[in-house]
């Protein structure tokens, strides 16, 4: 139930961000630092989410089949595969490694 509440708050705030751009005069937001923080935070959050999903298990670090998925995704991206192919490569590699006994 509480997840619903946080989820709806996230939806409201996401729309609020979008709307801010249309209603706040550009003057207030044109400080180059605002754009830069939005950009560096996007990079930082995505990098962090990648790492958390690859090697974190609760409050510990773990090396398991997800590392294989990370490597496979990186190779697919270097080969300029589209998003869906990258995701399937990650899933397939993790599944395969588990069949081979590496958790």
């Amino acid at each position: 139930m509480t997840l619903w509440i946080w989820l709806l708050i996230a939806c409201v705030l996401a729309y609020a961000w979008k709307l801010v751009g249309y209603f706040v005069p550009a003057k207030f937001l044109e400080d180059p630092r605002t754009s830069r923080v939005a950009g560096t935070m996007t990079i930082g959050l995505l990098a962090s989410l990648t790492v958390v999903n690859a090697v974190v298990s609760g409050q510990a670090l773990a090396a398991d089949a997800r590392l294989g998925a990370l490597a496979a995704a990186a190779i697919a991206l270097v080969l300029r595969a589209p998003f869906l192919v990258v995701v399937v490569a990650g899933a397939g590699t993790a599944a395969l490694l588990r069949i081979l006994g590496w958790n």
Partner: protein
Amino acid sequence: MKLLASPAVRVGISISIATGLYGVSFGALAVTSGLNFWQTMVLSLLLFSGGSQFAFIGVVAGGGSGLAAMSAATLLGMRNGIYGMQLNALLRPTGWRKYVGAQLTIDESTATSTGQTDPAEQQRGFWTAGIGVYVLWNLFTAVGALAGSGLGDPRQWGLDGAAVAAFLALLWPRLKGREPIAIAVVCAVATVVAVPFVPPGVPILVAAVVAALVGWFSHGRRDEGLEPDVEPYGTHGHGHHQDRHGEHQDRHSDHQDRLGGPERRRGTDPEARA
């Protein structure tokens, strides 16, 4: 039929299909990370921003709290505010169009619109990509959510690996140059270091703070990381936007040049698509 002759509409449609399709992976991952069908759908219908949606379920899947999930999604949504500012200067929507347009303000619609130089094409690009992605993203989220809930153990299918791949794929197009790579590495390290000391989900917020500090105190490109995660017009060399400058000297050029943003490098080259 006449609409299909518009390059912005054609690009908007192809972007919609490509992006819509990966809604399947979001839907499937969302239900396997513990959300129910309607929670998954509400994220796609109301939150409607791929990166933030993946962030929300990514934190939940890792055992993080709802508060941490909401915070990560919200911080990642900040860039949509910057896109909104660019689009407002570019499209000048009025009345209800502002409110609907705001909901459709995402990487894909911004990139499709700002990649055009003709104001009419910018309008068509925004609305085609915005509405197209919205409809298909939600449709395929539903497909993924229904399929995902019938899969049984998600680990057996490597769906946790799919999440890792999805985040790397969202990050990848933003790693152009030494600085964004350095930021990514620093934030990855900050995350790993924080893991044993704080509750699940919080290391992601620690990384966000680190990234924000880097952005605030360093002096790199001001639109770093604001490359949308799609390249509707393919990759163009850096030299291009200088050639294009002349074409932008109309009513919105002032904002364009000061705000920076995707169009600065993403740019369009009408000849290339003709």
